[in-house]
């Protein structure tokens, strides 16, 4: 693989004008790196049937429930579990991990976000996700790869820079800082407690966190599942919603997966310096005693 070819396959990303284009790769780039020992392709989906039914050759699966969530506490895996996960999927601190998945990369960006809690910054998202790979007629396999276990020493999880907890959100609200509610307008207005077409469950009250602006996550993606270019994203998040890249922003949804998508957009594609994902999101805030809501 020549450097020139690699760069050519990334030109569509560079052309979109992102603040940090290095966090995205194209499907073509992934196709060129299927046998690259320094690259580990990781599929993360909502539907557990999708990966075993066919995945990018050589891709391993990281499941958001089994692999990333704590089995008992509503929290993420701890350092030891993260190290075990990385050894199991054959990743070293130097390995470039490339995430992709179903649902417009919801779970891919969610996994990417969790990996950042442990400082694995050598991480990328495949623009367009599984949908684009399949639409382009690229190969899938049902063969589950096995990689030699690696040595991986992770730092303790550091939530502070990119994760917000309910007390952080309350202080944020009281300080009049900006929040982005990435759910559907019906959920934002309190007419529904989940996406349209999903059952109404999960929170006692409908509405949104006071002061939050509603920008559904889906506004950031094109029909083919790729992210919109920076200029279009700036029109939505900066000009229309009035957000500024230098201000402290918290994003949330219902359980934190859709908002990890918007977190990725703000932090890497638009270069926001301080953006945190409130993964407790509406399933926590909508059930909390003593916190304000708006409808």
């Amino acid at each position, binding site marked *: 693989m020549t450097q020139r070819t690699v760069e050519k396959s990334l030109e569509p990303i560079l052309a979109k004008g992102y603040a940090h284009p290095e966090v995205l790769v194209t499907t073509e780039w992934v196709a060129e790196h299927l046998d690259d020992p320094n690259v580990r392709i990781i599929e993360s989906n909502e539907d*557990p*049937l999708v990966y*075993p039914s066919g995945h990018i050759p050589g891709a391993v699966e990281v499941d958001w429930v089994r692999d990333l969530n704590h089995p008992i506490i509503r929290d993420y895996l701890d350092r030891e579990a993260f190290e075990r996960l990385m050894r199991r999927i054959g990743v070293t601190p130097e390995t470039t991990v490339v995430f992709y998945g179903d649902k417009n990369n919801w779970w891919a960006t969610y996994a990417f976000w969790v990996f950042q809690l442990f400082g694995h910054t050598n991480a990328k998202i495949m623009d367009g996700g599984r949908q684009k790979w399949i639409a382009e007629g690229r190969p899938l396999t049902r063969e589950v790869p096995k990689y030699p276990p690696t040595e991986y020493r992770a730092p303790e999880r550091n939530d502070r820079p990119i994760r917000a907890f309910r007390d952080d959100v309350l202080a944020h609200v009281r300080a009049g800082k900006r929040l982005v509610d990435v759910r559907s307008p019906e959920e934002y207005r309190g007419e529904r407690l989940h996406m349209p077409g999903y*059952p109404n*469950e999960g929170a006692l009250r409908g509405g949104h966190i006071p002061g939050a602006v509603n920008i559904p996550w889906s506004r950031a993606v094109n029909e083919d599942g790729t992210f919109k270019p920076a200029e279009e994203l700036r029109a939505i998040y900066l000009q229309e919603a009035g957000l500024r890249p230098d201000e402290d922003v918290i994003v949330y949804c219902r359980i934190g997966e859709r908002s990890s998508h918007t977190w990725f957009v703000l932090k890497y594609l638009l270069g926001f310096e301080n953006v945190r994902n409130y993964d407790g999101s509406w399933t926590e805030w909508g059930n909390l005693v003593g916190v304000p809501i708006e409808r």
Partner: protein
Amino acid sequence: MASENPALWPPKLREYLETLEWLQDPQERYAFLIELADAFRPVPPEIATPPYPKSNLVPHCESQAYVWAVEAPEGHAFRYYFAVENPQGLSAMAMAKILDDACSGAPAWQVAHLPDDLPQRIFGSRLSMGRTMGLEGMVAMVREPARQHLAACPVCQQALAEVQNA
């Protein structure tokens, strides 16, 4: 009308559920369900051709599944046909295969008692809320014509009473 009593369900459905219960390893269970999805065959053209009517569309199904119920020639039963428009709709395809195998030709009084939580029994607790709704919708569209038939058919009601009193 849905029932938690397996004795009221089609025997083939009980077989499927016993097999799935036996497959404790999630990977084995997924492999079995994917095999079923692979074996799914969509509605034949003599029953329906695209674009399919909205009346056969399963509400809230992310995979755009359709269900048809046609009275079976032997009477007191239906033949079921399915289409799944989303090629990635594996759960819907596996569900369609199970419902077809278990319910086509089965007595209407049995199909009328399909349990509400059938998707969870088949796919386990990992089912997302969105997919649960769609799969429950498929079950409901299979069960409803059987329920209506049972409500209007003394022969079926007698057959059901015999099982319940046994």
